[in-house]
C-alpha cells in the first residue's frame, strides 16, 4: 500500500522540484488542502457524523482530516486509486480496524449521535448494527443455513427454531438467493459459486437486521453476471438500509450510489451527488481520476 502511495506522491511533487515546464492539464500541479473537501460532504439527516478523522498505521498517516456525513438510507460510494484510504476509512465505521494492533483512529465518529470510538462502547452491539461485506466472499465452512443463522444465533434473535428458519428464509430472499438454495440449505457454503457466496455473505450480514451495511469492493472477485445480481441487490437493499460501498469500478459507483466520495492519498477530495461527480466534477483530481488519467 505504501509503495503505491509513494509513487503517486512522487508524481505529484515532481513538478515542484524540477524546473521543467509542465503541461497545464496535469493533475500533479494540484495541491490538496488538508481537511478541505469540495462538493456536499454534509447531510441534513446524517446516520454517520464523522468529523476530522485521522487514522494512523504506526507512524504512517493513512487518513487525513476527513469530515463527512452519511445520510440515512443513502447509498454512498467511495472511489479513488489504490491505497487512497477508502477501505481504511470504511473499516472505521464498524471498528474493524481494532483488530490491527498498530492502527489508531482520531477525530469524532458518531452513529446516530453515539460515539463509535467511546472506550465504553460495546463493539459487539455496534457491529450488529453496522454489518459488513468483504472483498472476497468469506462464507464459513459450514452449511448455507448455519452461515445465515450464525449472527441471529449469537445475538439471540430467535427463540424458536421456526423463528430462526424464518429469519434465514427472509435474509436469503432479500439477498435473492432463496430460490437457488432452498433445496440445499444443508449443503456446505464453500461449494457454491463465487457470486452465490458473496450474496450469501450479504444475506448473512442482513440476517442480524443491521441499520448500515458496509461493502468493501463486494464485486471485485465476481464475474459480470454475478456483479449485476449483487448491484441489483444493493438497489433493493437501499430502501431499508444505509449502504456504504467501496468500489474500483466507476461504472458501479455510477449505477448504484446516490452520492460518491473521491479519496486521494488519504484526503477526501470531493463528495457530491453521483451524477454530478461523473458529469461535472468540481475538483481537478476527481476529473483526472474519472477520465482515467491515473488510478
Amino acid at each position, binding site marked *: 500500500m505504501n509503495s503505491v502511495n509513494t509513487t503517486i506522491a512522487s508524481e505529484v511533487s515532481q513538478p515542484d522540484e524540477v524546473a521543467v515546464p509542465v503541461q497545464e492539464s496535469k493533475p500533479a500541479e494540484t495541491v490538496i488542502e488538508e481537511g478541505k473537501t469540495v462538493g456536499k460532504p454534509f447531510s441534513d439527516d446524517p446516520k454517520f457524523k464523522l468529523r476530522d478523522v485521522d487514522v494512523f498505521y504506526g507512524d504512517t498517516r493513512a487518513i487525513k482530516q476527513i469530515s463527512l456525513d452519511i445520510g440515512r438510507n443513502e447509498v454512498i460510494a467511495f472511489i479513488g486509486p489504490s491505497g487512497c484510504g477508502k477501505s481504511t476509512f470504511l473499516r472505521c465505521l464498524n471498528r474493524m480496524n481494532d483488530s490491527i*494492533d498498530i492502527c489508531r483512529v482520531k477525530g469524532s465518529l458518531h452513529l446516530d449521535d453515539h460515539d463509535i470510538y467511546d472506550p465504553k462502547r460495546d463493539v459487539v452491539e455496534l457491529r450488529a448494527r453496522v454489518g459488513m461485506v*468483504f472483498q472476497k466472499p468469506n462464507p*464459513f465452512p459450514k452449511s448455507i443455513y448455519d452461515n445465515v443463522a*450464525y449472527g441471529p444465533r*449469537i445475538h439471540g434473535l430467535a427463540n424458536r427454531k421456526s423463528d430462526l428458519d424464518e429469519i434465514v428464509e427472509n435474509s436469503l430472499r432479500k439477498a435473492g438467493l432463496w430460490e437457488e438454495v432452498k433445496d440445499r440449505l444443508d449443503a456446505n457454503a464453500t461449494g457454491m459459486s463465487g457470486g452465490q457466496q458473496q450474496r450469501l455473505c450479504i444475506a448473512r450480514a442482513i440476517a442480524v437486521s443491521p441499520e448500515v451495511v458496509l461493502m468493501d469492493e463486494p464485486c471485485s472477485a465476481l464475474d459480470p453476471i454475478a456483479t449485476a445480481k449483487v448491484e441489483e441487490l444493493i438497489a433493493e437493499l437501499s430502501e431499508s438500509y444505509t449502504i456504504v460501498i467501496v468500489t474500483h469500478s466507476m461504472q458501479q459507483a455510477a449505477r448504484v450510489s446516490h452520492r460518491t466520495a473521491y479519496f486521494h492519498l488519504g484526503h477526501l477530495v470531493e463528495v457530491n451527488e453521483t451524477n454530478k461527480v461523473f458529469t461535472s466534477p468540481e475538483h481537478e483530481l476527481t476529473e483526472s481520476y474519472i477520465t482515467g488519467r491515473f488510478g
Partner: protein
Amino acid sequence: MQPANLLLLTLVLAIVAYWLGYARSRSLAMPLGGIRHLKSLPFYYGARAALWSGIPALIVLGLWAAFQGKVIQLIVIGGLPDGMMPASQGEASLLLSKISNVASGALPPGFAEAPIVDAAERLKALQAQSRLLMSALVISVAVLAGFLGWLRIRPRLNARAQVESILKWVFFACAALAILTTVGIIFSVAFETFRFFEKVPFTEFFFGSHWSPQTALRADQVASQGAFGMIPLFTGTLLISAIAMTVAVPVGLLSAIYLSEYAGKKVRGVVKPLLEMLAGIPTVVYGFFAALTVAPFISDLAASMGIEASSQSALAAGAVMGIMIIPFVSSLSDDVINAVPQAMRDGSLALGATQSETMKKVIFPAALPGIMGGILLAVSRAIGETMIVVMAAGLAANLTANPLETVTTVTVQIVTLLTGDQEFDSAKTLAAFALGAMLFLATLLLNVIALKIVRKYREQYD
C-alpha cells in the same frame, strides 16, 4: 590403501576430471566463437566428467568393501586342514575370531595351534592383497571412466541434460536409502517375531492377561513357567497415554488458542519458544522429575486423603509425560489455527461475534481436522515414550485401571527384556521383538490416520 583414503582420492580424481572437462569444453568452444556455441555451459561438461569418473569408482569401492570380508573368510576357512573344518556356523565364527586375533597380534602365536597360525598368516596376506587390488581397481576405474567422459566432450553434447538425469538418480538413491532402512527394521523385527510365535502360542500373547517373562534358563532349573500375555502391558500403555493426553490436549490446545488469537506479538515471541523448549528437555530429565518430585507428591497427597497409592504410579508418569507432549499439541494446533484465513475471523467479528465466540464457532471447527491430526501424532509419541515410565511408573505388570497403582508399558518391558546379556533363542528375549512389532503396528496405524486427516485438511484451504 585404506578405503577411507581411497574415498578421498576418488573425490580428488573427480575434481581433477571436473577441471579437465571444464577446460576441454572451453578450448573446444574457442574456435567456434565462444561458449554460447556449446550445447551446455562449461560447468556442465566439467560436472559430467566428474560424475563419470566418480560414480563408477564409488560403486566399485562400495561393492568391494562390502564383500571382501566375506570372501576372505571363505578362503581362509576353506584353506584349513580337514580335521579343523568347523561343523557349525557358531564354530566357524569362533574359529574366525581366533584367527583374526592371532593375525592382529592380540593372541600370541604360541597360544594357538599351528594351522590357526598359518591361517592367520594367510588372512593377513589376503587382506593386503585385497587392499592393493581394490586400490588399483578403483583408481583405474576412476581414471578410465573420467578419461572416457572427457574424451567424449563435443560442442553438440547436451551435458546439461545428462547431469540432470544423473542427479535425479542420486536423489532417488538417497530417498531409497531411508525407505530401505525402514524395510530392514521391519524385517528384522518380523523374523524375530515369527520365532517368538514358534515358542509361545498366538492366543497366549494376544489374549493372555498375565505378563511374567521369567523362563527357566536350564532344563533342571526351578523357575516359573513364564507368561506372555500382552494385555496388561497394552492397558498400561493406554492408561499412561490417556493420562498424558488428558494433560496435554487441554493445556496444549488452549495455549495454542491463546498464542494464536489473543497474545500480542511480543508475548507470542517469548512464550512460543519457551513452550517449545519443553520438547527439547531430555526425557531422562523428565523421568527423574517424575520419579523424585511428582510421584512422591502424588502418593503423599493420596495418603493425606486416605487413599492408598504406591510410590510409583501411572498418574505421575502420565502427568509428566503430558507436560512433555504439550508443545507437540500446542505447536501443531497453533500452526493450524493460524492457517485459518483471516477472512473467517473478519467475517465473524463483523457480525458482532466476540473473539471467543469466533474462536469457538468458526475457527475451531475449521481447524479441527488439523488439530486432530496433531493430537494423533502426539498420541503416538506418548505410546512410544519409555524413559519417564521406567523411572516413575515402575515395572510391575498390573492389569488395572487405577492411576495410583504401579503399571508398566510395552516400551518399558522391551527395555528390561533386552538390557544386559541376553540369549537370542529364549522366548523371553524374543518377546521383546513381538512387543516391538505390535507397538510398531499401533503407531503406524495412528500415523497413517493422522497423516490422512492432516492431508484432507490441507486440501480444504489451498
